[in-house]
């Protein structure tokens, strides 16, 4: 019959795809590029139906954020209205004795778990999306793109904002032993800044480009065992014509962090918000686990902004250790007197020590590059700050990544005294909101460890971080630097020496700090 000679499907087919003649996507080098960093399919948590159902639920992230939201609004109100005694004020106690330490544990183990439940970004995002958890179509605010010249700086702005926040915290003595009202103002300041950015810019521009914690969490979090949301089958992502995970789909928003599961090679920018999983129409996104340090060692692409962020963070933690020594206190006083600055921390030596720490690290790497780089290999490539390469960068970028574990361990060790000595105060502080308890409570004075033990633990943590950094650096150097160096063993030993030196400096400083105490 003539009526059936035509292809039935063709008759009712949409004519648009016939006229769409997309170029084939580039596939060259996929295996080499992503092979080392791709997690094993067996480590996909979303293969388990219950987990999948939980994560697919649009209330998932809301329920992660909600408890933190309650705690932080409590911090704000109690900090302003409660007692001025830091140990008895719930706001100050939970923020400085427990929260910061817990965030470190989370970032070392999970990566950006904190970002998934962050009450600052979460609150602003609720307002930006005009919903607590639903998939909405219209957003509140201007939806501007973050200016390109600033965006190109990547992690440098967050590092600067972290340095600024730390300086403010030290200057107003907000954290130690704690200033409840100032703590509230600081939290309000962060929430207000976040809200302003969410209302002016699109997606999580604040979290990616501004948030003081993002560089720390991003770098230290790469040690974590959660790879983040990644593609299950890259070919499906490559041939996907809609990219709902990036643009937003029926059930999920486009990635707020500007990350595509199809090309993610580390957990650096996966905020674990699960929107890509919800929006993928092909069910091709999984939540993968990975071996610790994979996101430090495996990524092929090294970024200059991340490398400088690591060294600046290293400079900051060194400054915090140095300024706790007796010898440095007199230097600080001398500087304040001569520069007419009221009190610690003097911005000159604050920035000076941080800069010196970063530049010294970079200088050592430059020396290694100058001594060991092969002259017959062209390593220079022009480009912007983020893109260009040179002989120095060819060494500096991978070596800086290798330092992440020791830097992370040093930060973690710095938080331990407050946690061990004062974390128990959260209990009387919580009771104090309701009029119970006082500083005479035995729990208030309870310490989880003595000072001597705390130092031992601190040095053990640094030693562990140094070992992890040594292993990472050995692997990274073997893969990325041996081939461009005149001596493979020489470059391995040199970079290893740098890592061990950093670890030794941190450990010795803890000993000196203990002596100062």
């Amino acid at each position, binding site marked *: *019959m*003539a*009526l059936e000679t035509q292809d*039935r499907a063709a008759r009712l087919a949409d004519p648009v795809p016939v006229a769409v003649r*997309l170029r084939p996507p580039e596939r060259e080098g996929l295996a080499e590029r992503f092979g080392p960093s791709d997690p094993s399919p067996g480590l996909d948590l979303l293969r388990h139906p219950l987990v999948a159902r939980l994560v697919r639920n649009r209330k998932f992230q809301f329920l992660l954020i909600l408890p933190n939201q309650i705690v932080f609004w409590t911090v704000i109100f109690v900090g302003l209205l409660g007692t001025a005694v830091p140990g008895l004020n719930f706001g100050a106690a939970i923020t400085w004795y427990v929260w910061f330490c817990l965030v470190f544990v989370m970032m070392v183990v999970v990566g950006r778990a904190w970002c998934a439940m962050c009450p600052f970004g979460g609150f602003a995002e609720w307002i930006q999306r005009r919903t607590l958890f639903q998939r909405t179509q219209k957003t509140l605010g201007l939806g501007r793109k973050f200016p390109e010249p600033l965006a190109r700086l990547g992690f440098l702005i967050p590092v600067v904002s972290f340095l600024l926040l730390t300086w403010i915290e030290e200057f107003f003595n907000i954290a130690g032993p704690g200033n409840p009202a100032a703590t509230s103002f600081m939290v309000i300041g962060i929430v207000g800044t976040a809200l302003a950015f969410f209302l002016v810019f699109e997606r999580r521009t604040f979290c990616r480009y501004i948030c003081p914690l993002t560089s720390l969490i991003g770098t230290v979090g790469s040690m974590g065992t959660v790879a983040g949301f990644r593609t299950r089958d890259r070919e499906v*992502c490559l041939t996907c014509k809609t990219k709902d995970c990036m643009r937003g789909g029926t059930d999920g928003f486009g990635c707020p962090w500007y990350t595509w599961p199809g090309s993610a090679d580390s957990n650096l920018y996966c905020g674990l918000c699960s929107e890509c999983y919800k929006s993928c129409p092909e069910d091709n996104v999984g939540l993968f686990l990975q071996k610790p340090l994979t996101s430090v060692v495996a990524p092929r*692409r090294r970024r200059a*902004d991340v490398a400088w962020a690591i060294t600046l963070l290293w400079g900051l933690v060194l400054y915090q250790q140095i300024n706790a020594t007796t010898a440095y206190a007199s230097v600080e006083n001398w500087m304040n007197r001569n520069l007419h600055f009221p009190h610690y921390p003097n911005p000159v030596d604050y920035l000076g020590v941080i800069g010196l720490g970063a530049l010294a690290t970079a200088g050592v790497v430059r020396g290694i590059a100058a001594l060991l780089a092969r002259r017959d290999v062209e390593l220079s490539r022009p480009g912007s700050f983020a893109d260009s390469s040179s002989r120095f960068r060819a060494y500096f970028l991978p070596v800086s990544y290798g330092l992440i574990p020791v830097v992370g361990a040093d930060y973690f060790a710095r938080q331990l005294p407050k946690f061990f000595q004062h974390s128990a105060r959260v209990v009387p502080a919580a009771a104090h909101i309701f009029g119970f308890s006082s500083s005479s409570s035995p729990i208030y004075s309870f310490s989880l460890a003595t000072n001597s033990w705390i130092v031992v633990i601190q040095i053990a943590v640094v030693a562990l971080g140094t070992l992890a950094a040594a292993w990472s650096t050995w692997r990274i150097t073997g893969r990325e630097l041996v081939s461009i160096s005149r001596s493979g063993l020489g470059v391995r030993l040199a970079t290893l020496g740098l890592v061990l030196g950093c670890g030794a400096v941190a450990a010795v400083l803890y000993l000196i700090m203990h002596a100062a105490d």
Partner: protein
Amino acid sequence: MTIREMSAPVAPTHLDVRVLTDRCAGCQECVIRCPTGALSMDTGHWVALADSDLCVGCRQCVRTCPFSAVVVDGPILVAPRVEARLAHPASLLGDVSEIRSGITGWAEALAEAGRCLQCPDPTCVRGCPAHNDIPGFIAAIRARDLEGAHEVLRRTSVLPDICSRVCNQSAQCEGSCSWSLAGGTPVAIGALERFVADMLPVPPPAPAAPTGELSVGIIGSGPGAAGAAWELLEAGASVTVYEKDAVPGGLCNWGIPDFTLPEAVAARPWHQLASAGVDLRCGTEIRPEDLEQLLETHDAVIAACGAGMPLRLSLPGAELDGVTDATTFLQAAKATLGDGMDAAAFRAAFGLAEDPGAPGRPVPRVLVLGAGNTAMDVARSARRLGLEATCVDWLDERFALTRPDELAEARYEGVEVHFLRTLTALRGKDGRVFGAELARTTQAAADRRPTVVAGDPEVLGIDLVVMAMGYRVDPAFTGALPGTPVRRATSGVADRSWSASGILASPASAFADHLPVGTLALGREIGLWSASLPVTERLWAVGDALIGPATVVEAMAQGRRAAAAVLDAGPARPARPTRPDGDGSSRQRRVLVCYESAGGRTARAADAIAGGFSERGDQVRVLPIARVGLAELAAADVVVVGSWVEGFVVAGVRPAKAMRAWLAGLPRLGGKAVGVFCTFAVAPKGALPAMRQALEARGAVVLGEASFGPRELGKRAEASGAAAFGRELARRSTTKATARVLVE
């Protein structure tokens, strides 16, 4: 025809393309769509690489990058557009020659075709209501292959000669052209389409040998009817067209003046169709009450009856002599201008002064209400009849509904067009209109209704008022075609492939008069796919009858789509013996099982039901309702709908919220076979009846319904009940039995 500065070299000195590598995720959306290959991949870093030397500034990459990681600075590097010259006659009086002369030579055609970027993801194709393969036919022009160009156009259009003349390309294909979206001047797509049709006549339909099995009746002979008849004829169906007028063509025949659409061009499709075997019955009016009888005569009926009733404004003085409507005026004008210009008879018919040109006697003035395309046709016809013409519209000119070129041409011909004015009253003397009171209005935005500004009205002396605000569908037909007019408004997440193309990213192209071309095009998709679905069993509606007053090209595209659906469904009138398989054809049936699932149990039930159908050899798709649109529904012979039920134990139990919203937004399913199921924890209560009623209200025939509890769908259960339900539905849908299947 002029080619402006074609030889002027374009200096690519200021163009700079940058990829923001921090944000580029290497998804290659820009790479696969770049028309010039200026973007490639840096496989080492897995980010896009830009080559400014190859870039022409079309900014498709900027529009399509999901993360806004591409920045293009600099001018648009494209040669100036070849502008078609207008052929204004020396004297307008009585002249009906075509004003737009189109592209007449190969040199100009090739120059203009050379401006086309041949975009890999052409937004112009989405902007065209018929989805013509525009890069395809332009490539054929470049190869000087007119037959090839016709072949490409024929895949989606049967009226290239008409559409190229009457379409408002600035809001459709040209408004969606990459150059236009980038802020430049688009390729003259309409002129190139017309060039193809002018240089080589549109090939006639190639009818298949009639089998006599499928008989289709079409009401009306407008563009929708032409599109449908063409497709049906070429597929071997027997086509009968019922036209109430003496001449076929509908509004194209009597509503569009010859200076825009020459009579020969307008008549071409029906000459070809009648010659090819369409049974064209002019002078045969079909009223809504005749539909039943028509459905007994034919296996399927397509209502393409158009919107021929002129809109009339109700205001003081509207009953006076000298107040008429656009249809009356245009028909009379066309007859007068076409029959050698008996202007005296025309003036007498409308009660105008006998000798307007005589000394001391002013030229009669026609007040045209509205400034849309109909109003322009009226006013320009009036000018050719020796009358003064003034159009008033309460819209702001920025948001005017007329084609920009048509407005310019009208003004050139001496038509006064006043925007932001509205008629508040007509003044009469001795029962005859002589003045119009006009009030000022203001309009803030295109989607805002104008408001009248307080103040004394202006009074304009006039001799004739023509209400030309547009047309409407005969209300009697609207009542007979349930679900019409279909609202062409999108909601929720836009089609992702449309977003990916970038057409939605630049909604305010200056060339398109700042109209949101992408959103408008998406709205047209609703009409297009709605035409695939019958409004009642064996009755389809297209064009104005389906969506209200619309454009020629939309109606034609919908006609083709409805014809395809008719051929696909293979309906049979009761009197016609059905085939042994009982379904009118031996083809494989397509079954769509759509569900709303929260925890996965409803999805499991859907899979099991699909299995039941598969066992009988049906082609089955299982989709969550979020992914079921008009296209999926149109392509399915049988639809099974399932939902989990929400509520507290036994209180407030009903289908899930998403399912209720989806059901509420369903189009007409005229006679489509449907099965319904739900899954529950304690009791389904009224969930099934609620779903059934919603589907039946849209004309679906519910074959069976079932509910499944934890026992049937528990972790260890094999969902055998659901599979059995699927098998039973499959059996019943074969015979189209309407008894309900009850599964406990």
